[in-house]
């Protein structure tokens, strides 16, 4: 076959995509959750090389006794090599602080769902030019290194959010653990996650045509989940060696970016360099779609809402969608389930009554005989 010497030019597509995305910029919402004192803020500062928490006030123990969870958002624009990223970090101060932590995770679930609702509304609107994506793309969940694995509170939180957000479990302050302790704890956590059927973010498999090095790196990274991290805002300058970001102890210095000391590099590479886009895609294609489907399904069922609002949803205008509709999806489902139960119980009751009557008449007959 004659080789075609003519050049069409669509090989330039990737470049065009690159230019467009650079121009558009990226936005990413990262949630950090876990008990106080596990190094969350320090890690965020280390990851993005900023100081996001300068003005933070930590409450006293007595103030924490009945502290409820609040959601705090901090935004920062970071730029590197011409690429702009609008990063939003969502914090959950107060998580696990009070003596009674029952249901303390509900505000977080509510928050994540609200972002989905907002997007659903925007997506169904007439003017879709400037949709702001405030959905949470990833949740870094911090596990304590001082215990023996996941605690009941950890499990409760993860189960409440695992179908709604990409979870990446992380062991905070990992410099409390010797290497073999780290391995044991990681294995324990992995086992517990499987036992409790908690779905964490799954790294996609690499393509078979990638080179061996990349595959090896990828496999290593997958095996080191949950990431055991150490964060630091200090740069340690020891005499002869080069300055490193680390924590200085009397017995040595932990280097944050040393892969033998902790998994910080792995986490950063995965979160920022290789999988940021995938996290956004999974959030959009899987988690958001799941939410949207269950929302619309519950609206389309008979008895849930009247005809008029149903037809309204298919020809939309953001202002016409009755606002309280979406949040009630869950309660509608519950109501329907309860109705079903009631109906079943009524049927059973009737059956039992009929039986009783029968046996009564039989009894009467035998009495008279």
């Amino acid at each position, binding site marked *: 076959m004659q080789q075609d010497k003519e050049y069409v030019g669509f090989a330039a597509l990737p470049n065009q995509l690159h230019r467009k995305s650079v121009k558009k910029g990226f936005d990413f919402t990262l949630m950090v959750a876990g008990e106080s004192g596990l190094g969350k803020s320090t890690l965020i500062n280390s990851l993005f090389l900023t100081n996001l928490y300068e003005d933070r006030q930590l409450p006293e123990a*007595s103030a924490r006794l009945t502290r409820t969870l609040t959601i705090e958002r901090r935004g920062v624009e970071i730029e590197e090599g011409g690429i702009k990223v609008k990063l939003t970090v969502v914090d959950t101060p107060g998580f696990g*602080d009070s003596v*009674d932590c029952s249901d303390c995770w509900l505000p977080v679930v509510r928050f994540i769902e609200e972002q989905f609702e907002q997007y659903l509304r925007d997506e169904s609107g007439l003017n879709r030019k400037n949709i702001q994506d405030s959905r949470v793309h990833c949740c870094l969940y911090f596990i304590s290194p*001082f215990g023996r694995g996941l605690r009941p509170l950890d499990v409760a939180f993860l189960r409440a959010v695992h179908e709604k957000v990409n979870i990446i479990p992380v062991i905070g302050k990992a410099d409390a653990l010797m290497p073999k302790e780290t391995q044991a704890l990681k294995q324990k956590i992995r086992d517990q996650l499987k036992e409790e059927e908690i779905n964490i973010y799954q790294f996609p498999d690499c393509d078979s045509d990638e080179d061996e090095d990349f595959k090896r790196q990828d496999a290593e990274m997958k095996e080191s989940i949950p990431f055991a991290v150490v964060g630091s805002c200090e740069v340690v300058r020891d005499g002869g060696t080069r300055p490193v970001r680390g924590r200085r*102890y009397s*017995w040595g*210095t932990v280097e944050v970016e040393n892969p033998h000391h902790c998994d910080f590099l792995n986490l950063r590479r995965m979160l920022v360099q290789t999988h940021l886009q995938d996290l956004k895609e999974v959030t959009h294609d899987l988690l958001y779609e799941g939410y949207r489907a269950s929302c619309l399904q519950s609206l389309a069922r008979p008895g849930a809402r009247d005809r008029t609002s149903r037809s309204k949803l298919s020809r939309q205008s953001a202002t016409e969608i009755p606002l309280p509709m979406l949040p009630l999806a869950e309660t509608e489902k519950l109501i329907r389930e309860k109705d079903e139960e009631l109906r079943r119980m009524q049927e059973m009751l009737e059956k039992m009554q009929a039986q009783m009557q029968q046996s009564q008449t039989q009894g009467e007959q035998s009495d008279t005989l």
Partner: protein
Amino acid sequence: FENEELRNLSLSGHVGFDSLPDQLVNKSTSQGFCFNILCVGETGIGKSTLMDTLFNTKFESDPATHNEPGVRLKARSYELQESNVRLKLTIVDTVGFGDQINKDDSYKPIVEYIDAQFEAYLQEELKIKRSLFNYHDTRIHACLYFIAPTGHSLKSLDLVTMKKLDSKVNIIPIIAKADTIAKNELHKFKSKIMSELVSNGVQIYQFPTDEETVAEINATMSVHLPFAVVGSTEEVKIGNKMAKARQYPWGVVQVENENHCDFVKLREMLIRVNMEDLREQTHTRHYELYRRCKLEEMGFKDTDPDSKPFSLQETYEAKRNEFLGELQKKEEEMRQMFVMRVKEKEAELKEAEKELHEKFDLLKRTHQEEKKKVEDKKKELEEEVNNFQKKKAAAQLLQSQAQQSGAQQTKKDKDKKK
């Protein structure tokens, strides 16, 4: 018997009563000592490891999981010996502390346990035939409270729990797993904790500074509270010696190196200097408080409204009589109630019996009536049958007569024709 003024006399020779302390020591040593430590802290914080490290031995135990439904206390006793001194050591652990989602009741089992040991001692003390010298004292002498090394402040659970325990036991707060706190952060963390304890009115154990021999060391050590400790039973080669340590890729933390952590200080304070004072404080302060509260609850007072001292015996007698009187009254009540119930039941039964009889009579009557009806009908039927038979017979007769006359007629007719 008047209280005379004590006069100071000087001796002209050596009598020998300066051996009294030695006699005391010898006696105590031969009896053996007993010490009870309570370790309060979250699962996995290092309680067992620290005990192993402090006493240079491996106390066997299964590590607990985070899935305990509530807090429970586990006590284990061990016999240790060093030189010629025997120590009966009891270590009490709080299993499941800090794991539940709702920790409102977490402190309760701990308080109950401490009170139970006081109660046991009180009971022994109040016995008529008692053997206090032989008594195995299970009261908690020291409570090591393990604070998690968050670097921020105390947790809310810590505050609540320590407030409930500070009037019942000698609390010694320690920072556990301290090899996670860098030197510059440690000082800030320690002062934050101490100021929080003070501002919330938590009374921790004060190392005694009244006795000259220990005043100095206690004073210097107190400055370092809460002690930041690291525990380890594994040994690592340092130089040419083996030492208890934790080996990290970035360095080795030596447990007994005072630059690395306060383990040595804790051991010094807890065991080598103040163990006896801890026991004494437990008995003279915490136990006395418990005893006083308990007896006041029971109604005992030291002085009556006229400020005359009550004798325990009189009070006891009075209480006893009161109690017996109440018992009797209750017994009477119960007896009366019993009698009443019996009467009620009897009446019920009689009613039921009467009803049964009536029913029986009714049935009998009905039966008889039915029987009579049946017999009447039978008679009627028989009569009818009889009538019928008669009619039948009559009819037959007529028929045969008719036949006969008919036959006769034809015969006559026949004869006439001839």
